[in-house]
């Protein structure tokens, strides 16, 4: 019970963390709440969808892990790169022209870009949800157990070919073969927990890479310099436009990875996919202290856990409907954190500029 809540929470929280990283990096550099960030996540998820579909991941037999792993690697790379390029383009066309026009103008631009990208996605890809491609387990008709141990189908056909518990005698096998069915397919036993484990692992692998990029490379040092005092950075020969573009690239790249991870875990993608996770990730970034990279990770994981733990706790205490208020409770959690620590858990107090 406790382990379930923790894994559910950490798995979802890792996704929030992936998105929150981009929010926090962009905010750290140019003090912009980039509301379109959730849409970069969504576009990444779509690109990952097409890559996985065209690579034929759902045709691969699950017992062959290598091709599947490779397919996911390719899909994630393509998705992340596409999201990153879209972010750079957005920054260049929409945000840079208003960078000096004040924070409200930039914020409204971001909201506008968010709606624009959502609706563009509806126009291009349709408003409906699409099932995310998933590797399956294939069996030859001859190898079917005498009593079917699961639902088996063929990919082209929606209705079931063999239902769980059906008796598969010689006559039934012959009937299937007469229909031209050589192999059947069933959905894998990959549990949601298993996938969430993968997402957590991906976050664990990403965090040191990001840390290294920001702390140990020239680009990262310049990013920190720009975020601490952009005017001084310019006068020291640092090209702000380049640094801002690099930040958008990096932030959206991570969001693209998160997009594929999220949709592969929860099973579908649609143009509104980025909306709620984007909003929650923004909350996560604020809880952790916006502008702080460790804060984004802590805030993401914490919000994820809180979303499952608080309703579970309230259920134990006798409030049967607590689950239905999961989202509302997340916001209550945000309000409590901000009341206690207005700069977020790892945020720095605002330094007065002389």
């Amino acid at each position, binding site marked *: 019970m406790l382990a379930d809540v923790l894994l559910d929470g950490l798995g979802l929280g890792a996704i929030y963390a992936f998105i929150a990283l981009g929010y926090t990096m962009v905010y750290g550099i140019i003090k912009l709440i980039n509301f379109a960030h959730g849409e970069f996540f969504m576009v990444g998820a779509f690109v990952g969808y097409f890559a996985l579909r065209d690579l034929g991941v759902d045709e691969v037999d699950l017992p062959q892990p290598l091709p599947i792993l490779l397919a996911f690697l390719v899909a994630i790379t393509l998705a992340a790169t596409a999201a990153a390029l879209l972010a750079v383009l957005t920054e260049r066309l929409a945000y840079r022209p208003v960078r000096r026009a004040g924070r409200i103008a930039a914020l409204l631009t971001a909201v506008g870009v968010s709606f624009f990208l959502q609706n563009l996605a509806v126009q291009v890809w349709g408003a409906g949800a699409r099932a995310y491609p998933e590797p399956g387990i294939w069996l030859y008709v001859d190898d079917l157990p005498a009593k079917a141990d699961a639902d088996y189908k063929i990919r082209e056909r929606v209705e079931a070919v063999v239902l769980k518990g059906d008796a598969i005698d010689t006559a039934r096998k012959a009937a299937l073969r007469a229909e031209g069915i050589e192999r059947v397919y069933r959905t894998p036993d990959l549990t949601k927990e298993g996938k969430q484990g993968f997402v957590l692992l991906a976050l664990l692998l990403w965090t040191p890479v990001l840390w290294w990029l920001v702390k140990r490379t020239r*680009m990262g040092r*310049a990013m920190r310099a720009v975020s*601490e005092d952009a005017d001084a950075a310019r006068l*020291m020969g640092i090209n702000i436009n380049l640094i801002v573009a690099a930040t958008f*690239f990096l932030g959206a790249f991570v969001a693209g990875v998160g997009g594929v991870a999220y949709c592969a875990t929860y099973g579908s993608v649609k143009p509104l996919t980025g909306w709620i996770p984007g909003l929650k990730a923004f909350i996560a970034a604020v809880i952790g202290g916006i502008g702080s990279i460790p804060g984004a990770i802590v805030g993401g994981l914490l919000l994820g856990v809180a979303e499952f733990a608080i309703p579970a706790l309230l259920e134990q205490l006798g409030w049967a409907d607590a689950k239905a208020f999961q989202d509302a409770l997340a916001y209550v959690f945000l309000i409590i954190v901000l009341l206690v620590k207005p700069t977020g858990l790892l945020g720095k107090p605002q330094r007065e500029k002389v």
Partner: protein
Amino acid sequence: MSAPLFETRHVTKRYGGLTAVGDVSLRLDAGDLVGCIGPNGAGKTTLFNLITGADPVTSGTIHWQDRDVTSLCDHQRARLGMARTFQNIRLWPDMSALDNVRAVYQGRPGSGLLASALRLPAFRRTEAAILDEAERLLDRMGLAAHAQARAVDLPYGEQRKLEICRALALSPQLLLLDEPAAGMNPTEKADLMHTVKALRSEFDLTILLIEHDMKFVMGICERIYVLDHGEQIAHGTPDEVRADERVIEAYLGGEAAC
């Protein structure tokens, strides 16, 4: 006569009806150590902002080795070889002293995200060279022991030195010092005078400094420009400036005696 390293021609900056800097023409030849003085509000810091490109000029032009650089923005001018320090210290407070210096090297080739992500050998070589240079600069300014300390945690005098360090990391030809002696005691000031002179020959610098402290400016600069209400009212050697009627009237007053 060879082209000056740096020149402003009739540079003017107006904010609405207020003329912060009016018709200032200033010339620096390679190796010069020049001061710019004037009472509070004379437009000295504004002039620095115009020189570095932090503020655009209203009229007039700015020249670097005979090239008109008026339209270049601040980071491009910095890359030409103009580095500055600030009157109010503008270090990156939460970064270490070492990183404050190293961040300046961002524009070097081989610094791309891709190169760093792949840890290419070229990236590692440049990174090692940068570390080497940054440590040498810190060592030169006596800050080696503080390399890992956050800039904001350094004592005031050390922060000032770190700002000079950071400026030197740009390998500048022209170093602009904005009130380098502000807040220092006489011993520190004497020390700084010595350092500034020494840096000029060590790094082949041309130096322009703004300073309030008359003794400091008179003691170190070969030529002095005097601004008052944004106007350039005098220019010459310290002795000439000290004797100038308008300067005495506008600025030095009773102080001239000391």
